[in-house]
């Protein structure tokens, strides 16, 4: 039974149970919907921009523990950051969960490191990245819902 505890870290379970920044953002500038048809996971990400920076971000939806915790940790991680910083963060996060070498050695992923166990579970990579794809769509102002299939 190797790997189980590596995936379901305490912090992931905690963010799943009590997600941060959960619920609609009333005065949002941007909104995007994401969907993982394989799991039936749905989530919505709202953004409030301040120039190029994300002033506030919230999400809502239903999904597995990995997708909910990933969205929760992501919202904390990107708040106050610029679009370019978020792109860099996502590239590194994506490399982390797919088991690729880090594209940016100096970048500190902070709490996002808790998702490193996902790389052992290829079927769950989409769960971990759904929130990020949805966030990107919101940043780019895409109208179409995001699908990870």
């Amino acid at each position: 039974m190797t790997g189980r505890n590596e995936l379901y870290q305490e912090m992931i379970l905690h963010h799943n149970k009590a997600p941060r920044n959960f619920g609609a953002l009333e005065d949002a500038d941007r909104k995007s919907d994401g969907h993982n048809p394989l799991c039936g996971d749905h989530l919505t990400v709202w953004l409030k921009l301040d120039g190029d920076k994300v002033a506030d971000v919230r999400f809502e939806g239903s999904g597995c523990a990995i997708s909910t915790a990933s969205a929760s940790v992501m919202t904390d991680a990107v708040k106050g950051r610029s679009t370019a910083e978020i792109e860099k963060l996502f590239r590194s996060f994506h490399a982390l969960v797919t088991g690729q070498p880090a594209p940016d050695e100096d970048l500190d992923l902070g709490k996002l490191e808790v998702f490193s166990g996902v790389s052992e579970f290829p079927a769950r990579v989409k769960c971990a990245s759904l929130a990020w794809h949805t966030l990107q769509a919101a940043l780019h102002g895409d109208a179409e819902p995001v699908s990870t299939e």
Partner: protein
Amino acid sequence: MNAGTRTSTETPAYDLEAVRHDFPGLHQKVHGEPLAYLDNAATAQKPSAVIEAVRGHYERDAANVHRGVHTLSQRATQAYEDARGQIQRFVNAAESREIVFVRGATEAVNLIAQSYARPRLRPGDEVLISWLEHHSNIVPWQMVCEQTGAALKVAPIDDAGAVDMEVFERLLSERTKVVAVAHVSNALGTVNPLARMVELARGVGAVVLADGAQAAPHLPIDVRALGVDFYAISGHKMYGPTGIGALYGRAALLEAMPPWQGGGDMIRSVSFEKTLYHELPWKFEAGTPNIAGTIGLGAAAEYLQHLGLEAIGAHEHRVLAHAQARLAEIPQVREIGTVPGKAAVLSFVLDGVHPHDAGTILDQHGIAVRTGHHCAEPVMQRFGVPATIRASFGLYNTVAETDRLAAGVQAVLEVFGA
């Protein structure tokens, strides 16, 4: 094929140990635990008899069928057509030419939708399906309705997961040209009252296609007793290879249908002015077929008949009943699909845990289940869940494996503190 021998005078002896010995895939460890394979409704493990039949073709008889005068081709043709006879006996069709080999049940439904229904449907006509259907028995009908202007009608299901037969009957009218229903639901295990559905459909002059992909591994099929016009089966769900299935069709209906695909083997003669099509069943088998798969499918049908579908069903129901009882002891479990006499499918959700998380943790305990919408999204919507955990049992599963499932579910709940 040396398992579960029985004589006509005694109660069928079901030698589970011998049966398990027939399946090499069962005897492996997953994450350090013995594999408990409970995902049979997705695909079943293969007995040595099937593996050897496929291997035998490739090792000794690898030649094309219906073409060569040489020995290998004749042997391949013989084995291929023998498989047709095996499937004919498996579904109790009157003639072997009523069996058409296809890629799977999905292709069988598409063939009927395009070759039978499409030329006949007119605007105002209706196709009736049920709420239980797999996407493969929904989408082909949506497509043909779009092509012809016919309307798709859906008979609802009740809270247990049974088709509401009053509404089913009300939805039938002289406008109904085709009724397409699952014999057994893949997501819930519900066994539809197929003979009754056929009787009602007959009353309005509609033809009936049954999707038997989930029925073939669990119960005896008798297309003549059921009275169905078309019946689709899938090889890999009944312990045969993937990429092969069979369509049963009443000869008179198949005769009247145009070919679905054009190519080699389905023609009698070709010139640029006129092509004459082959007779049944080859009219519907364009191109070099999946020869090895077909031979493997025949071996699977023979294996199932050798064990006896009644004996298999009785064994699976014992395993299902035990699993239901064990899961019922866990308050966080809600079973989805509770029609009495259902096939060995146990779909459930857990309070506070998403099915995908449960599936990953069960896998870590060596337990293979399916989690998701099971290609039956309308069923999920009907029960208000995005997905379920589905344990589906086969002829080789044991009561002890259902104990492990219950223990695995407890472990899932522990991880999540649910």
